[in-house]
């Protein structure tokens, strides 16, 4: 028995080894592994050329001084024998041996009395005056050189032609070449691009990470009534929020002509908001207040929220004024004005999104609560009946929205197919769900949100920023802004995943303790989760900045700005010396980032 098993085991191992070998063999054939090419002489010459160019980065330059040294040369030899050539040996001079030869013959060129350690081209100059390079020379420490070279294939002429050695000398002190300057310019752009991408990505990722944390979301459970109603609440709320924000945006735009109106508007609105919040948000509540008081408070808070939107818009317009003013009057620091201007623009842009999320959130959680209340207090059959209705409507709404999305993408323009059928299917599915689910059972809606979030994050993360940038380039044009957006998007997805894993690994004890005090969900997150994740969040953010700096060096390959743009250009132009400069710049920045981030991490973590 035992023996049999060991035999089986050996066969198993043998099969496994064969399978592994076959897999590798296939991999070799798929990847065209061919080491013969690595030894081919032609390719090796090319490789050498490129490596040598790379080893001579174009960083430092001097003012050049050229000195031409010429010698007459006969091609072919005159019929009356080898010519006598007079050379002035007081300065640098060259001697060609033999002094005359036919085309494509080899001659030896010797130079004397040159400045030591200089270099330059050797040219053959026919009567037409064209320069035919026949070689390069480099003088030794005595100022001499010797080069054997092949003559060009030219029509023979009788008169003397010229062989010229051009000695190039550096004069003055070394300085950075224009290419080095443009490289520095672009590498700075690269670093700031990475900074912005990391900042935007981090801010978004923090919010998303809580939705993608299993330990927090698993506990979120709601009965179907509540889920369906809050889906409806969110949908209506988002639509309403965008409308309200648009209306307030239009209204504040009409008032934005006068800076005084803006200032007064901000002051008065802020005061009113403060008063409302003071009244409607009491510091402590021992007993639950009456329903009428709660409704009045809700209404007051809604007014306050509207005013907040108003203030946001006004702050944006104020920012435009200040930004414009600064840009015109700060001279070299005008970019500060642009900063204020762009920040204000971000403010104005996200106001509708914020409003949509806020109104959606309020309506969603409010209708969810009503659902919970209904589910808790009504009889099971009544709840089931209600469920069939609201779940049907919610299903229809969701599917109709999906249908609208599909219509927008594929431009079908057929209401039956993009609206009625999806809505009908959604309604049927919703009702079926309501009939299938036990009426009052709490559904693991948190796990559903968790799964959806995770899936979206994984999908977003699996596409490289280099590909996103192609889309963003179409949207915002070639340049670093497109790169920052692409990197930011990828950062959001990647960090949200890392962050959420941190949230999942926190100690459950403090969480339990804070929950036991009667804290609600958000309070629990702020008091028990956040303190535990601050340090890993900082450390991950730095790590990501590191990655982003590296990524941003190549994001330019796809039009995303930064140093990649230059690098790609130079590689395409076969200017390897320039490319080498840019690679060195990248190496320096990445190494510096690595070093600083490790130091900072040690200090903070």
């Amino acid at each position, binding site marked *: 028995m035992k023996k049999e098993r060991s035999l089986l085991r050996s066969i198993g191992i043998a099969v496994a080894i064969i399978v592994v070998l076959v897999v590798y063999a296939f991999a070799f054939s798929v990847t065209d592994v061919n080491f013969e090419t690595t030894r081919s002489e032609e390719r090796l010459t090319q490789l050498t050329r490129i490596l040598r160019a790379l080893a001579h980065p174009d960083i430092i330059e001097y003012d050049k001084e050229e000195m031409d040294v010429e010698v007459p040369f006969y091609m072919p030899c005159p019929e009356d024998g080898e010519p006598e050539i007079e050379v002035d040996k007081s300065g640098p001079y060259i001697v060609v041996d033999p002094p005359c030869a036919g085309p494509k013959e080899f001659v030896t060129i010797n130079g004397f009395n040159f400045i030591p350690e200089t270099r330059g081209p050797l040219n053959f100059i026919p009567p037409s005056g064209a320069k035919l390079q026949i070689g390069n020379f480099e003088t030794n420490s005595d100022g001499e050189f010797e080069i054997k070279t092949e003559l060009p294939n030219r029509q023979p002429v009788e008169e003397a032609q010229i062989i010229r050695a051009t000695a190039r000398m550096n004069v003055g002190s070394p300085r950075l070449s224009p290419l080095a300057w443009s490289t520095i310019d672009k590498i700075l752009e690269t670093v700031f691009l990475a900074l912005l991408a990391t900042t935007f990505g981090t801010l978004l990722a923090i919010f998303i990470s809580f939705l993608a944390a299993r330990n927090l979301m698993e506990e979120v459970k709601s009965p179907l009534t509540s889920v369906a109603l809050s889906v409806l609440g969110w949908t209506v709320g988002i639509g309403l929020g965008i409308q309200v924000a648009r209306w307030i945006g239009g209204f504040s735009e009409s008032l934005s002509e006068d800076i005084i109106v803006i200032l007064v508007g901000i002051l008065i609105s802020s005061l009113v908001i403060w008063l409302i919040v003071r009244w409607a948000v009491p*510091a*402590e*509540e021992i007993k639950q207040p009456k329903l009428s008081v709660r409704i009045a408070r809700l209404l007051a808070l809604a007014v306050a929220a509207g005013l907040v939107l108003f203030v946001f818009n006004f702050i944006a317009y104020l920012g435009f004024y200040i930004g414009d003013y600064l840009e015109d009057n700060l001279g070299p620091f005008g970019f500060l004005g642009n900063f204020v201007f762009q920040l204000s623009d971000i403010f104005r842009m996200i106001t509708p999104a914020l409003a949509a999320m806020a109104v959606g959130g309020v309506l969603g959680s409010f209708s969810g609560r009503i659902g919970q209340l209904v589910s808790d207090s009504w009889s099971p059959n009544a709840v089931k009946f209600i469920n069939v209705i609201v779940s049907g409507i919610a299903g229809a709404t969701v599917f109709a929205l999906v249908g609208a999305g599909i219509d927008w993408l594929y431009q079908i323009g057929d209401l039956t197919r993009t609206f009625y059928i999806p809505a009908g299917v959604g309604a049927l599915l919703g009702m079926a769900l309501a009939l299938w689910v036990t009426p009052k059972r709490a559904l693991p809606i948190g796990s559903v949100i968790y799964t959806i979030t995770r899936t979206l994050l994984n999908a977003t993360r699996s596409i490289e920023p280099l590909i996103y940038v192609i889309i963003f380039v179409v949207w915002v044009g070639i340049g670093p802004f497109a790169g920052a957006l692409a990197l930011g998007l990828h950062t959001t997805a990647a960090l949200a995943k890392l962050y959420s894993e941190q949230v999942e690994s926190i100690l459950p*004890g403090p969480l339990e303790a804070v929950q036991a005090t009667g804290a609600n969900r958000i309070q629990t997150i702020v008091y028990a989760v956040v*303190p535990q994740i601050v340090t890993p969040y900082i450390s991950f953010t730095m790590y990501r900045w590191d990655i982003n700096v590296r990524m941003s060096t190549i994001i330019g390959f796809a039009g995303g700005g930064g140093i990649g743009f230059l690098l790609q250009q130079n590689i395409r132009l076969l200017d390897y010396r320039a490319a080498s400069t840019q690679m060195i710049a990248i190496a320096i920045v990445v190494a510096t980032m690595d070093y600083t981030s490790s130091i900072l991490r040690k200090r903070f973590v």
Partner: protein
Amino acid sequence: MLEVKNLTKIYPGDVLALDKVSFKVEPGEFLACIGLSGSGKSTLLRCINRLVEPTAGEIVWNGVDITRASQDEMLRIRRKMGMVFQHFNLVSRSKVLTNVLAGRLGYVNPFMSVFNRFPKKDIDLAMQQLERVGITDQAYKRADELSGGQQQRVGIARAMVQEPEMILADEPVASLDPVLAHTIMQYLEQINKEDGVMILCSLHFLDLVHRYADRAIALNEGLLMFDGPPGEIDDEKFKEIYGKEAERIG
């Protein structure tokens, strides 16, 4: 008054943690809960404030069935139940004062608390409770800089700022040395006697039960084995609760 009726908890995977447990606790009573590790003591305490969802049974407190309370109602009920844990469960990177103030979260305005703004009254209350357990000077230190005994005092202060009517203590002294154990138990006793707070406390050592508890209940594999004054736990009862091979220490 707290009345537990036929409380049953079955964890996923058909693990029966509590099997139809019923008992009553009078206001102001100090009830000890004993039993082996894994006998269901922690589950029992956590069912009472519904950190663990009971599977069946009722928990009636001041005339309200806790098991049927909605989520919102549950938050209001939890405010009046302080909880003290074996491993203290402080947020180690937060200040001691913040940890104590966390006990007020059920009362304060959620919006303001998110920005760490507490009313002055609450901060005073927190300092008072820290003074009561004798660690006012540690208030602004980080919680993980404190020793075990000090951390448990912070835990008690956190429960006390809730101005609770009941304290659930889940093996509050199991991680502490015997001397500290008595100090912590004395704080609980003081809270029980002076403030009249009902205390449900799970304990391992019988001498602590004898010394501090008015009454004891014992669990073995989810079943209630004993309910009576601690003095009644003789050797025979002891073997019934802890099993035949168990030997009495302390």
